[in-house]
């Protein structure tokens, strides 16, 4: 189960940008959100997931993206993607 929020670098409401690069070989970020900006909506802690990961991955956030930010167009719909913090940077910073 998730660890407490205290270990998170980001907070709910933070604006973040997904990195383009693949930090420390962690592949679990869909290509379509790389380089895109979103808002952190939930913190899940560092989830013990030995069936899927080798070793412990960084804390996980749910990040909300407007479909139009990711794919263009005029959609009002949203995408919530669970991302490990090593993939995230503050939205203001270059990455």
């Amino acid at each position, binding site marked *: 189960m998730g660890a407490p929020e205290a270990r998170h670098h980001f907070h709910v409401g933070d604006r973040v940008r997904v990195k383009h690069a693949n930090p420390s070989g962690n592949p679990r970020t869909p290509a379509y959100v790389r380089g895109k900006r979103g808002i952190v909506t939930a913190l899940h802690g560092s989830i013990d997931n030995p069936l899927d990961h080798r070793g412990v991955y960084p804390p996980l956030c749910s990040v909300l993206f407007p479909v139009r930010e990711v794919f263009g167009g005029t959609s009002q*719909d949203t995408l919530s993607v669970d991302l490990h913090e090593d993939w995230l940077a503050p939205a203001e910073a270059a990455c």
Partner: protein
Amino acid sequence: MRALLDKGVLTKEQLERQRAFLAGRGAWNGARIVARAWVDPVFKQALLTRGREAVRELNIPPGRLGKLGVAENTAALHNVVVCTLCSCYPHDLLGDPPWWYRDDSYKQRVVQDPRGTLAHRFNLRLPDSVEVRVHDSTSDVRWMVLPRRPAGTDGWSEEELARLVTIDSLVGTAEALTPAAHAHDER
């Protein structure tokens, strides 16, 4: 498994029956979880905040595949689940997802055009006032949808309510059955 089949210990029919049983049991677990959440606000809150730990009170084994995320549908928000990287799903708790959950065309289309995919592929047409939110499950959090309780079900028992919950409604490509649709299915 292959060895057991080759030696004749297991027949393909036995295997298929077991698969169907497991899939059915899983979906029924999901239906019971949803029905309890509809009638018991304290359980619903526990489910939304503590995930799979909450299902123990239904004597359902909580499973152990990461964290269970529960996305609640409301009058203003409709949730739908996908796993674009593979086919992550809380299958230890809910059984197998629908077959098309693993289909690349579903994965690609539902993230690019959530509302259009629901309308054209699943005949679920949602008003513009409802936000459609796609949850891309990336293995650590396995998402299920908590559908809305259908109108016209006041006073129904949990067991009756559970029969309105379909596997598609747990993924969010359908709403729970209406009493009228359920009666039609039973005939």
